[in-house]
Structure formats: C-alpha cells, structure tokens
C-alpha cells in the first residue's frame, strides 16, 4: 500500500504498468461495493414481498419487485409527520447555527483579539463532549421551562452540538477569502459589520452553503436528544420513528427496510450532488485547523 504514495509523487497512475492499474481498479470497485452494499441490499429487501423475504436471502435476491412496502410506510401518517418534524427541526437548527456561527467565525478568522485560541479550544471541546452527560439536567430544565416535548427541546441542544462544527468549518472558509476587499470596504467607510454583511457574506456564500449542508445532515441524524426529550408521537423525528418500526411492523421487514431507504434518499442525493464541497468542508476544519 505504501508504494501508492510514491506513485503520486512522481508520475501519477499513468506511469504504472497496466497490471497494477487493473489491481487498483479492482480494489476500488470492491471498496465502493462494500460501502454501498447495505444500502443496495436493504433497497432490495424493501421491494420484496413478505413471503419472499421470509423464504431466504437467496429468494430475496431474485424475487419480483413490489411496491407494497412503500405503500405501507407512505400510508402511515406517523411516518409522514416524522419526515416533516425532521425537516422543521434540522432546518431551524441550521438557520440558527449559521446565524450565530457565521458571526462568531468571522470574528475569529478576521479580527485580532486576546483569548482567541482559548475560545477556539473551548468550542472544539464541545464537539468532543459526551452529550449523554447532560441529558438529565437538560431534562429537568426543559421541564421547568415547559419546552419538553416540543421542537425546541431538540433544536436547542442540536444547535449547541452543531455550532462547533459550523464555526470550525466557517473559520476555515473565511480565512481563505482575500483580505484586501474588506480593507477596501473599510477604507471607504464601512464598519466591521457592514464589511461582514456586504463583502464577506456574498463572497463566502459557497462556503456557507457547504456548512449549511453539513449542519443540516448533523441535525437530521440526531437521535439521543430526540429520544430523551420527546415522548409525544406527534413530535417524533424520523430517527426515532424508524427504529420503532421494528415493533410497529414486527415481521414486516420489507416495510422496515422501506422506511430506512426513504430517510436516506435525501441524504444520498445531497451527497451525490455536493460531494466535492462536503469533502472540502469536512477536511478544512480538521487539517488546516
């Protein structure tokens, strides 16, 4: 494997013998297959009838496709409601995170002040934080304030745990923007905030957009807080509803599979369209930071 490093540094894949190239592509295909196999298999299960599923995995592989399971899950009002709840919670979390995150990240990336690295360390510490350690106090406080069992009981903690990610990635993006433009704006009499709003925000739009996608995925995937603070089915997000399908549709494995597939499809589409941006966003924080 180590030999691959050396090839990059010299001539790239073109200079290699064709046998090695074939091996390399076999490796790639295997890697992609292993990555995608569960999704493909569960999709196969979701379009198979109950009796074919129960027969054996081999029968499942060749069974004629059916849409029964999808009719079942889309006919389930709780599932539809859960999809809506997840969109509301993840969407609101993303907007709040971007608002506070962008302002904070701009100051860290651009302005000079003391305690900057202490503040960054503190923010980073949150992303290492075991969320389970605070569910009891938050439960008590949310009950006291009366927001238990509402969207806010998910949005507030989601925001706190997504903020470090948002800030970290935005700092990396903001640092890459040319400084001259803001300086020019300031020379022309713009205040810090105006320079931020009129110059940086439009320029940073692609970076902000990438951050929004990552924050949205993060909030969409959250499970612990939703499972702790929500016990009214009307407010359940998809991450709580799908595992419950195991008891709702006991041996109707096809419907369990269909539910899982439906929830991942928006994410798969997001990833396929924005893969390049997502990778640059994810690695910006970790490598350059």
């Amino acid at each position, binding site marked *: 494997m180590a030999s691959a490093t050396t090839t990059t540094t010299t001539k790239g894949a073109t200079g290699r013998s064709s046998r090695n190239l074939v091996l390399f592509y076999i490796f790639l295909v295997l890697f992609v297959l292993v990555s995608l196999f569960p999704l493909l298999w569960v999709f196969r299960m979701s379009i198979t009838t109950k009796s074919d599923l129960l027969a054996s995995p081999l029968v499942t592989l060749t069974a004629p496709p059916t849409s029964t399971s999808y009719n079942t899950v889309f006919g389930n009002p709780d599932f539809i409601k859960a999809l809506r709840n997840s969109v509301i919670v993840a969407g609101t979390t993303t907007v709040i995170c971007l608002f506070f995150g962008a302002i904070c990240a701009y100051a860290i990336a651009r302005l000079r002040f003391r305690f900057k690295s202490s503040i960054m360390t503190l923010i980073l510490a949150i992303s290492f934080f075991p969320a389970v350690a605070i569910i*009891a106090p938050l439960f008590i406080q949310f009950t006291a304030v009366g927001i238990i069992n509402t969207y806010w009981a998910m949005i507030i903690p989601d925001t706190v745990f997504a903020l470090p990610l948002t800030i970290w990635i935005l700092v990396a993006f903001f640092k890459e923007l040319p400084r001259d433009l803001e300086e020019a704006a300031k020379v022309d009499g713009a205040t810090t905030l105006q320079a931020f709003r009129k110059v940086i925000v439009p320029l940073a739009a692609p970076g902000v957009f990438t951050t929004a996608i990552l924050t949205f995925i993060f909030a969409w995937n959250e499970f612990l807080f939703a499972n702790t603070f929500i016990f009214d089915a009307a407010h359940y997000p*998809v991450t709580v509803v799908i595992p419950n399908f195991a008891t709702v549709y006991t041996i109707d494995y096809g419907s369990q599979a269909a539910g899982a597939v439906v929830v991942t499809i928006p994410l798969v589409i997001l990833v396929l369209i924005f893969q390049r941006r997502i990778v640059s966003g994810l690695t910006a924080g970790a490598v350059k930071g």
Partner: protein
Amino acid sequence: MTSSDRESVSRVKSEEKKRRGGWFRQEFGNPERRMAYYMVLPALIIIVAIAFFPIAYSVLLSVTDSTITGFGSFVGLENYIEMFKNPDFLDGLKNTLIFTVASVTLEFIIGLGIALAINRAFRGRGLVRAAVLVPWAFPTVISAVMWRLMFQDQIGIIDEAAKAIGLISNPILSSNTLMLIGATLVDVWKTTPFMALLLLAGLQTIPGEVYEAARVDGANVTQRFFRITLPLLKSTILVAVLFRTLDAYRVYDLFWVMSGQQLESLSTFVFKSVRISQLLFPQGNAAAVFIFVTAFLIALIFIKVFGMQTGTEE
C-alpha cells in the same frame, strides 16, 4: 512564596497594568476588538449555558439522592460506589472500552491503507468520493436498522451467510458477544471512509519533493513510509484518531437500535438510568459525570502525551 514576594509581584503587575492601561481596557478600548468580543459572545453564551452549565448541574445531581422531579439531600460518593457495584454499568464499561479500542484501531489501519491507495490522480475519483460519503451521511440509527435487518435470523443475508460458512451456529442477534462484534464492524463500515478522507487530506499536504529527495538518498518504500509519511502525517492522525475515539466512546445510537436495546454501553446505561428507571437516577448521573471526566482525560492524554496541537494560530 512569602507574602512580601507576593506583594512585590502584585505591585509590579499593577504598575505594568497602569503602563499598558490593563488588558481589559486595551481589549475593550479598541473598537475593532470590542466588536470581535460582541461577535463571539452569543455563540459562547449558548455553548456555556447549554453544555457547560448542565455539566456542573450533573455533578451536583450525582452527589445527591435526587430524582428527575426534585432535588435530594447530599449523599457524598455513595452513588459512585453503587454504580461501580452495578453489573450493568460494568458491562457497559467493558463493552464501551472493547468497542472503542477495536473500532478505532481497525478504522485507523484500514483508513490509512485506503488513503495511501487513493492518494493519486485516477479516473472515477468523484464516484469513489461519493461512495465513501454515503455511509458517513446516513443517520447512525438508520444504518443500525439496516444492519439489524441483515443480521436478522432467517431473513438476514449476513446471518445466513455466516451460518452457511460455519462461522456462527446461533443467530447473531441472540448473543451479546456477536452483537458487540457486529456493532464494531458496522462502525468500521460507517466511519472508516471518513477516516480515510481526513488522512487523505493530510497526505496531500506532504510535498512530493520530500519523497523525491528520500528516494535519491536511497530510502526504500518502508523507510519512506515510517520516516516521512507517518511523522509528517502525525498531527492529522492525532486529530482524526482523537475525534473517532471520543465519538466511539460515547456510542449510543448504534448499540441501542442495532441490538434492540440489549447491548449495554456507558451511554445506554446513563440513558436507561435517567430516562427509564426511576430508581437508578442518581447512579445514572454518577455515570454521566464518569463519562464526561474520562472523555476529558482521554483528550488530555492525546494533547499532553502525544503532543497534539490544539492552537489555531498560524
């Protein structure tokens, strides 16, 4: 330090303060800096109020016999003692440690291998990158549901395949050991690609000339790997491994959903205690503090022992 020493030190400090106007005035007297603090403050307040303040609250709950509805009286370390006697907690601790060490080790080794292999220009890069990201972008609970379906007795392809080749004789979901192995493999499947991406990004920052020079000096592949790649990749490796370690250490979603709430981890123990059982509430808080403190120690070890860089200044 004697009192006269202290006096002289404080006198020196106050003189210095007078001379420089004090850091407070220096920071807030400057409009740009003042603006910076105003901009950082809202995010910081949110983080401190919703994450750090509750930790203090957790510590308080853990030394009292409180319930979810009301504060109790001070009981010292009794909850911690009870917790360490609780077989469920010990089981969760053991599973969490095995899971963390096994999954992070495998993810690092396989991830580094993949990163080294794909660190070159090739056709179909976008496809590989997308394939890598798909498992990562899934909600953990959904991948747990998917793998549970594949581990299922009779209908699950993995359960059937493992039986067919004689790897297992009992259904995977009937044994805690097999479920722990299963959970580890699911985690490896889900996060190795992410690890590979981080390491790949780190590899790409190593200039090619370094390898060229080493080759000219007669270093072979192994030498180049251990003398150049690993040392230059060290900071990326530390960040990636620490990130994954602390993430694996707080495992909850995967265990809870994949094992049908059977497999115990530290986090599932806390969840069950504070959210489901009335009696275990104080122990649950002790376990919550335990997780927090040990996670903090893990991070500290990475920073102090391995010399991880945490600063962001260039």
